[in-house]
């Protein structure tokens, strides 16, 4: 009898505190990968979200309520991410979900958010179809804060034309990869629209090792090129750079975020000096310096980019939208996120969402360059000089 009443009281207390807590807390879900091969980014992502939430709460919270991050591990695995989404929506009643980072996993989980009428903001899913349907219309509740693959092609074309003064470009791309083909096409569209000329567009098939035939063709062409655009992965880019220099091609190289691995320099050696590439984020970005110090002070280690900064952008986007909507109702919140114009987030001072695609609108990319065998930050660039 005595025991029973204690348990009843405990349950009552728990229920009351739960009900009370529900009243002044806004839950935001984090669908992140905390174990498995992507965990180094996922853990950074969660750390950054907690830090950002604490900061928002110290400054008075949102609509007078405190933000609480509720996280579950998705192991970067599509079925797991679907279960995590279901749990966040059905059991935790979150206002919005931040994550998933991987395109394929995001696409799998997105359906649950759509059915549960809960906005989901992907951190780094760069596949164009993460937020839109095949016919080009956006999913109502799917958003992202990273740029999409084709956007990098645009950034690269603008950077090459405006900043490097390139007028004639050649392209070597991997015809077996969606990523590479998108980047190549968008580079060409934007570069020619600016008034540049494409001298050669050469394709190879994934797994190729010898590019001297196509590079020889580029070298033998009557026009000297000012830039060689190589939107591939690091392995091919390193080999292409090395073989191009061997053949005496002197133009600078440029690539996408796929080349951003130290393997590029291992494979390409000296030939990769001055290799430019577009990237999602860089620790040397002055916009991040203050945040980076806080992160280091709190966790004693460097964040693993780009996921944590993207997650903070996503949280700030959600918080801003909740303020404008005045509610955490999913439908109103999704509308408010869609209407986001020129707000301040971590990586930029004017962040907007494109209502037609649910992608960020002209969010700056980071330009990196290889210097003395290391990646260096050049600038943040949104396409205008």
């Amino acid at each position, binding site marked *: 009898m005595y025991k029973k009443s204690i348990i009843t009281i405990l349950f009552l207390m728990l229920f009351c505190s739960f009900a009370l807590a529900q009243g002044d807390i806004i839950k935001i879900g984090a669908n992140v990968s905390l174990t498995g091969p992507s965990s180094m980014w996922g853990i950074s992502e969660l750390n950054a979200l907690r830090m950002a939430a604490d900061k928002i709460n110290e400054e008075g919270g949102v609509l007078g309520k405190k933000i609480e991050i509720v996280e579950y591990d998705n192991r970067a695995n599509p079925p797991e991410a679907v279960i995590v989404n279901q749990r966040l929506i059905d059991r935790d009643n979150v206002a919005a979900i931040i994550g998933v980072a991987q395109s394929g996993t995001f696409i799998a989980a997105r359906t649950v958010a759509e059915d549960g009428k809960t906005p989901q903001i992907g951190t780094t899913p760069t596949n164009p179809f993460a937020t839109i349907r095949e016919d080009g219309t956006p999913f109502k509740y799917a958003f992202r804060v990273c740029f999409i693959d084709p956007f990098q092609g645009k950034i690269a074309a603008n950077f090459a034309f405006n900043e490097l003064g390139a007028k004639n470009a050649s392209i070597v791309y991997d015809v077996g990869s969606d990523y590479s083909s998108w980047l190549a096409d968008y580079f060409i569209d934007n570069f020619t629209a600016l008034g540049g000329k494409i001298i050669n567009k050469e394709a190879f*098939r994934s797994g190729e*090792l010898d590019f*001297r*035939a196509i590079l020889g063709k580029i*070298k033998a062409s009557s026009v000297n090129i000012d830039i060689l655009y190589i939107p591939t992965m690091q392995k091919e880019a390193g080999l292409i750079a090395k073989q191009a220099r061997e053949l*005496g091609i002197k133009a600078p190289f440029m690539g996408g975020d796929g080349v951003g691995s130290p393997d590029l320099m291992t*494979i390409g050696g000296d030939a990769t000096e001055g290799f430019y590439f577009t990237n999602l984020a860089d620790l040397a970005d002055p916009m991040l310096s203050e945040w980076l110090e806080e992160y280091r002070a709190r966790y004693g280690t460097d964040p693993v980019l780009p996921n944590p900064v993207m997650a903070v952008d996503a949280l700030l986007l959600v918080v801003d939208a909740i303020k404008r909507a005045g509610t955490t109702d999913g439908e109103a919140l999704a509308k408010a996120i869609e209407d986001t114009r020129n707000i301040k987030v971590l990586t930029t001072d004017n962040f907007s969402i494109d209502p037609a695609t649910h992608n960020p609108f002209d969010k700056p990319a980071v330009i990196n360059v290889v210097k003395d065998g290391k990646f260096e930050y050049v600038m943040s660039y949104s396409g205008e000089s």
Partner: protein
Amino acid sequence: MFLQTLVTGLGIGSIYALMAMGYCLVFSILNFSNFAHGAMIMIGAYVGYLFCSIIGIPFFLSIIITAVITGILSVINERLAYRSLRERNAPSLYLIITAMGISIMLENLVYSTIGSNFYAYPRVFSKNYLEIFSSTIGLIDIYSFFVSIICIILLHLFLNNSKIGMAIRAGVADPIATSLMGANFNVLIRNVFFLSGIFAGISGVFMGLRYMVYPQMGWITNKAYIAAVIGGLGSLPGAIIGGFILGIIETIVSVYISSVVRDVFSFSMLILILLLKPLGLFGIKYEEKM
């Protein structure tokens, strides 16, 4: 432009030729395609990297040490995997499948022990290329071209003038008669595998130097295998000429048509040649290979 294409084609072709010779040697005597040769080339690239880059032995000395090591590994491979099959007169299909198994096993062994990282050889030549008649020739190409030619000549002299070479040629002509004449067939095959291992080591080092070192690099030997088939499996001069033909045609197709259809051309050519000459260009008669 055409000269440049030709030079590049010869450079690529010489690597194919060097790799094709290893296939050719084994095929000529055992009548099966040793698909583990590609994996042996990959091991050669790693061993060469170890000596040349980590231990820091001069490049040409590294090649020799690597060639000996892969030669020994190739003999061990034969002893462990092929001999018992051979002694039980298994059809050559079984040997081919065993060879594929070894190739996959070695590749995964490297994945699990060394990992999937890429490695690059240190720079061996101070200058990377030469300019001749407005076309650029990579120094590595010149070296691999001459090393191929020298290896081929040495092999030819060895097979024609040494006792072991004579035994190998006799074994190729008629294995049973050679055994009956008192030649130890197992020793003979060991020698053939040692030679093919030497070629695997040399081509592995040149492949690693030319491109990079990674576990899957053995797959490029598919092309070398095609070169050997074009030339006529089992014919040494055929393997060399097949390698050069394939290298040049691939380059010409890449430059003048498109690099995307390059493999369509090289494989169509393989089918066409086999339709017209089922034994390849130089695979004359079974008894007179080599």
